[in-house]
């Protein structure tokens, strides 16, 4: 029989034939990006592929390096807020809050923030978190060809943008939070509008989950793709939904609770396998948890004439406009504040909050003047993106799309 085999195949075994006769195929080097739809316009990957399998990918970020740090060093503490808006531009409120908390820590007024201000901060942060996840999940679905779920989510996001605009005056770049509180109080009846929209968002979520969750095509695209082991995830410093999908039980809101999170009840979802499908599920679950937090906040939001939206500390807050118009002391205080900025005592502090993508930290070095001496931001996107090089190894080119989508690489945050 063996002879027959040799006769037919010219080889002892089929395996031998495969190995010996395979032509060495050439590797191809392709530029993916910077201007590639899956690269969000800001990343270039120099891919080395064998057929469509990725042998090596050199990720080159930096196409959106807008010099956040350098700009901050030349801006007063208040002027940095617009810059923080544009870090993670999908959830700007959280950046605002994180930065404000870092400055407050340096000023030593963390405990003195009015409770209403804390609640408002948490409310807008959670709304921002929902917009972040809606955008991330929607955009990933779109990049996988599901245009309709994307537009449903955009519709829902639009409702939240309108609400955020009513609060802050801008749809996206709010610059709403201030050191010591928030710049304006919530408008009347805003919470009711928000609660009504939350119900509608839940309805949209049901529809989109029907379209995606169990869809075999979608699942096959996500499940088993971009798997990251827990050890690797820890070593690469993954946090947020991406880290939790890998099974890292870490959420800043839970482990280092800040603001009023100790008073709230919510669940932290954890994935099992660390693939893209888990990341998707974690994000979807986090939207639901944020909705839950918002409903609790609506019940607990302190109201009443005595509740302030910003701290009444002459070092930090602008005097009320009425006083600035009328009294000379307030006028001088106002001018000092505008021209010199908030005087932050020398020192350094690292403050971190749970951003839309993970641990968003601000490391500020103050030198006693009105401008930060250094304002480093620990951006989760940058950290997560650094892991992609390893993740995408041996995947297909098509897998870059879900991997990138679910990492939720935000150019502004990644490249600072």
């Amino acid at each position, binding site marked *: 029989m063996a002879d027959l085999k040799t006769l037919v195949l010219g080889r002892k075994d089929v395996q031998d034939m495969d190995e010996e006769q395979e032509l060495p195929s050439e590797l191809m080097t392709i530029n993916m990006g910077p201007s590639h739809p899956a690269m969000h316009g800001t990343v270039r990957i120099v891919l080395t592929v064998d057929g469509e399998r990725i042998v090596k990918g050199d990720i080159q970020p930096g196409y959106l390096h807008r010099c956040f740090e350098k700009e901050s060093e030349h*801006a007063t503490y*208040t*002027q940095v*807020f*617009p*810059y923080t808006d544009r870090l993670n531009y999908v959830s700007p409120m959280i950046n605002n809050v994180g930065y404000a908390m870092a400055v407050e820590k340096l000023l030593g007024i963390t405990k003195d923030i009015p409770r209403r201000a804390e609640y408002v901060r948490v409310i807008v942060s959670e709304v921002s978190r929902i917009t972040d996840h809606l955008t991330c999940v929607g955009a990933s679905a779109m990049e996988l060809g599901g245009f*309709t779920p994307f537009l449903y989510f955009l*519709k829902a996001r*639009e409702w939240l943008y309108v609400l955020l*605009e*009513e609060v*802050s*005056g*801008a749809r996206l*770049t709010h*610059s709403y939070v201030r050191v010591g509180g928030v710049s304006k109080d919530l408008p*009347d009846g805003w919470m*009711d509008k928000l*609660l*009504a929209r939350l119900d509608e968002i839940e309805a949209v979520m049901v*529809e989109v989950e*029907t*379209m995606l*969750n*169990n*869809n*075999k095509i979608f*699942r096959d695209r996500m499940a088993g793709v971009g798997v990251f082991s827990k050890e690797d995830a820890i070593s690469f410093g993954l946090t947020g939904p991406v880290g939790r999908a890998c099974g890292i*039980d870490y959420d800043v809101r*839970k482990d*280092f*609770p800040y603001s009023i999170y*100790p008073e709230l*009840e*919510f*669940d*932290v*979802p*954890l*994935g*099992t396998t660390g693939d893209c499908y*888990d990341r998707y*599920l974690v994000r979807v679950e986090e939207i639901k948890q944020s*909705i*839950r937090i918002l*409903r*609790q906040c*609506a019940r607990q939001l302190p109201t009443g004439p005595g509740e302030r939206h910003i701290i009444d500390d002459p070092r930090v807050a*602008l005097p*009320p*406009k*009425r006083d*600035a*118009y*009328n009294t000379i002391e307030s*006028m001088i205080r*106002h*001018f000092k504040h*505008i*021209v010199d900025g908030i005087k932050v005592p020398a020192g350094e502090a690292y403050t971190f909050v749970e951003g839309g993508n993970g641990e968003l930290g601000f490391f500020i070095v103050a030198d006693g003047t009105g401008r930060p001496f250094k304002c480093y931001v620990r951006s989760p996107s940058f950290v997560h993106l650094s892991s992609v090089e390893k993740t995408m190894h041996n995947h297909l080119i098509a897998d870059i799309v879900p991997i990138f989508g679910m990492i939720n690489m935000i150019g502004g945050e990644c490249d600072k």
Partner: protein
Amino acid sequence: MAGGHAHDAHDDHGDGPEVLSVSDKNPRVRTIQVKRPTPAESSYLAATAKGLGVTLKHFVKNTFSRRKNTYIETIEYPEQKFEYPERFRGLHRLMHRDDGAVRCVACMCCPTVCPAHCITIVPAQTDDNGIEKYPATFEIDELRCVVCGLCVEACPCDAIRMDTGIHAKPVEERHEAIMTKDLLLELGARSTAVQGGEGADWRGKK
């Protein structure tokens, strides 16, 4: 309204999520396992049919219902307009004094605070007693302005506002986007922020 939702009954269901641990910092925060549907639950035909059902529902309702019953949210922009909220930061304007003159006293707060340096003021002396200066030139480059609203916050005399409720128009040349003092004043109105008067804190009203 707020308490009316049964979402907090989330854990009362028998098939609630699997709780992995409870936080030691806050006992009301739990760590749960996301519910991953079994591969058997996702099939080509059934899931596709369900998905088609959703889009079909939208299609039928949007195509065959009256406009107000549909899911359609589109506003036909140039004809229909979305009413901007009160706090919307739009085009700048310069407020007037009672005599119609510009309120601005050229204190240079707004150009100082503007992170984009889009405001240019050339102050000039005025013979008005009490107010020493007025802006001979007041220009805002809308193509630089990042609409952060800091200038409005910084103005100590309610001279500059962004509450016009109109957005800046797109332009064909860079210089067309520069709002001169005359244009800014045209949009302005008499300020309610009377010095020493009640209406000063117009931002205070919710």
